[in-house]
């Protein structure tokens, strides 16, 4: 099975590591992934308003392309995953949005939410399997105490994203275990870092970041991993003096463990 891959705009510029290490790792794991030929930006933020149709269209086009190829769509960036999944949910369940988006898009056949949107972590858990992954690790990251930073967009709203418990998720911890490191659970791993507000109100973002880092350090994390370029930027750049903590994309650690970094 070949999977379609949606990198998203940030992975092509500021978050290249997230993208490159994912590709290398999958190659090492023997999974075929093909970048969608003609993808567009997902929109960056899910338009919650029920009557916002135009701002959902770029996601709809991407989803429709994946449907035409008949392949599941792999996402990597939390925000892209969030936006594409929610738009897909709308196309499947909200007839008003579906009809209008299709009227506008004029696809050969109307798009009705057929594409299966899968996050890279889900691929690792459900297709590769964490046990298999563990067996393929050549360079286990022994002794490293890593905290998973989920952030807000990857798991919420759980009714629509639903790939792990929104309050006590385990998927990233299981991943960290599989690559040989020690996962550290800390309470603020699923609270928002304020990435969206970083552009307009650094102070508020810093407050959020500090609280997350405090919580992680209190529980004994030496480093954090994330799937979100926005969190990466915000947590690494907007913490108060002296609070900072090393944060990496999970794919970078994956590549490291598989010996393909």
């Amino acid at each position, binding site marked *: 099975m070949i999977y379609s891959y949606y990198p998203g705009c940030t992975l092509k510029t500021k978050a290249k590591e997230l993208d490159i290490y994912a590709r290398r790792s999958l190659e090492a794991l023997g999974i075929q992934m093909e970048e969608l030929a003609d993808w567009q930006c997902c929109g960056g933020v899910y338009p919650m308003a029920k009557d916002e149709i135009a701002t959902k269209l770029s996601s709809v086009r991407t989803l429709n392309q994946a449907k035409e190829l008949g392949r599941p769509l792999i996402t990597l960036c939390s925000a892209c995953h969030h936006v594409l999944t929610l738009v897909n949910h709308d196309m499947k369940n909200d007839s008003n949005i579906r009809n209008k988006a299709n009227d506008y898009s004029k696809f050969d056949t109307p798009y009705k939410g057929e594409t299966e949107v899968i996050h890279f972590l889900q691929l690792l858990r459900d297709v590769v399997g964490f046990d298999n992954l563990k067996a393929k690790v050549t360079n286990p990251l022994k002794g490293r105490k890593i905290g998973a930073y989920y952030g807000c967009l990857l798991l919420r709203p759980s*009714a629509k994203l639903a790939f792990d*418990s929104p*309050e*006590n998720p385990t998927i990233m911890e299981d991943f960290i275990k599989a690559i040989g490191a020690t996962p550290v659970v800390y*309470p*603020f791993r699923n609270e928002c870092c304020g990435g969206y507000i970083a552009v307009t109100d650094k102070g508020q973002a810093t407050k959020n970041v500090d609280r997350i880092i*405090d*919580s992680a350090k*209190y529980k004994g994390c030496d480093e954090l991993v994330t799937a979100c370029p926005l969190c990466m930027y915000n947590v690494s750049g907007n913490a108060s003096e002296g609070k900072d903590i090393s944060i990496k994309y999970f794919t970078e650690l994956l590549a490291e463990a598989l010996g393909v970094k």
Partner: protein
Amino acid sequence: MLKIGVFVCWCGSNIAATVDIDQVVAAAKLQPGVVMATGYQYMCSENGQSLMRKAVEEYKLDGVVICACSPRMHEATFRKNAQRVGLNPFMVEIANIREHCSWIHKDKEQGTIKAIALANAAIAKVSLNAPLISGESSVTKRALVIGGGIAGLQTALDIAEAGFEVDVVERQATIGGNMAKIDKTFPTLDCAACILTPKMVDAASHENIELITYSEVESVKGFVGSFKATIRKKARYVNEKTCTGCGLCMSKCPSKKSKNEFNLGLDNRTSIFIPFAQAIPNVAVIDPQSCIKLTRDKCGLCQSVCEVKAIDFTMQDEIIEREYGAIVVATGFKPIEVDAFDELGYTQNKDVITSLELERLMNAAGPTGGKLVKVSDGSHPTDITFIQCVGSRDCTSRGKEYCSKICCMYTCKHAMLIRDKYPDINVNVFYIDVRTPGKNYDEFYRRAVEDFGVNYIKGQVGKVYAEDGKLIVQGSDLITNEQIFIKSDMVVLASAIEPDPSAKKVASMLTASIDTNNFLTEAHAKLRPVESPTAGIFLSGVCQGPKDIPETVAQAGAAASKVIGLLVKNKLVTSPCIATTDELLCSGCSNCFNICPYGAIGYEDKLINDHGIRETRRIAVVNPALCQGCGACSVACPSGAMDLLGYTNKQIMAEVDAICKR
């Protein structure tokens, strides 16, 4: 042709506001067979009933149609009324023009048209009615109570006191239920064990009560007055009759790592165990999941030390079959799992506990001997925060939409008891509303605030997390409009309660209906609160809806009085609406025999005179004592020989006809 009278009830304005009574009366008069029709304000009143009786006599009516409320409400009333003037009660039919018409249709024209159609259907049906004579069935003078908590025990004791035999079937190894786990009870703060254990002893020693513990009802057949129940008595591996409850086996058992269910897993127990000190029967039981002998065929230490040789590893489940006249469901409740509310950190922090766990921690017979300590390290807490409504009033998939009713009061009780015993502990309570309707209840709550200094905070909690050796409770204070962070040593969640998971299975087995939350439904929300709609099935305690102990005991007594009222009867009047065979049409094919869920159909060879041809044929015969009148046979019958009295094919066809007429 029958002479039919039609009476249209106004029900005050309940019907008259949206149905033009005069038009219905006028339309009824045009129907064939109708000799009189009239409207009246309240047909169910004595005046209304006497109006009907007078008309029956004056017009020599042999059929009556009442257009009024649901037959589930007053069919019995009007049928009895007919009997008073010598009219066969089954010559009365009800057209439901209230629940099915006036209450739901606001447009008077539409409502009137529909009411006329419904009246016409009832008139069409009654013209085909025939007088029916009720049969009789016997009553087995023994009751079954399912569940041995406070509800079941109270019901059993009350029935037994009235002189009837009662069996109490309890799934656990001991009776006592949830109440046995509770420390103190509100609003009097007397100890639960002090008021419950005497009742348990009374039940065990009562000559009319048999306690069947560690057992489950597997199936129930039959009907009111004569139910047949199959009860599976699970193997205890300990002889109940010889075991003295000395506890020597427990002290020798090497398998000590099973979670102690009675203490909600707060400590461990041995594989052979007596659930708690006051357990009844005070007899050990072996947990087959963890017993070394039963799982690996080693050990057997308990058997060798038992002085009365009560332990028997070869014991098998036992099947008991009994007959009962009435069955009481008292399956109780359990607190919901709060794992899904993990922002409150129950699965992540040992010091986040549920209220029932707190009961065990404060109970002198509990895992800490009644000393309130942090679960994580056994140290003395200085700040405790309670969170109410965890899962109650929650319409998401995580919780329950209803109010669990008891949490406000028990949280208040906990807060008060803690402040009383440990004045150095600060107690905070997050609440949405404090609901205290009940005698001396609000006074109790105010005492907690005014005399015991419990700090009530109007708001909810968004997150509980550990930091610097404390739990931080992040909540909102809606009065000061602040987001607050309270440092606590323990957090107690007032989890919602739900019907015990067995309730659903028990309800299906008894064909008693349950609601969308799996609470058993009562026959009438106000007027028949302890009866199930299924005759002979009664409801006691929380299986019917959330209640506290006083209400449970009151309802348990009420259920018992209904059971007693049933068991004192020697004969029950049975519905005459049963299946009947047209012997000329019956071909003896056995279709009806195969479909009948009650085994009410048998076959006889009968001499039949079929238009002059005399021959012996195999004919289906209905046993009137067994037939429940479902009518399945009448549809299965290929020749149309089977019919259901009271709901005959012709009658239903006539109703269809009347309704569809354009």
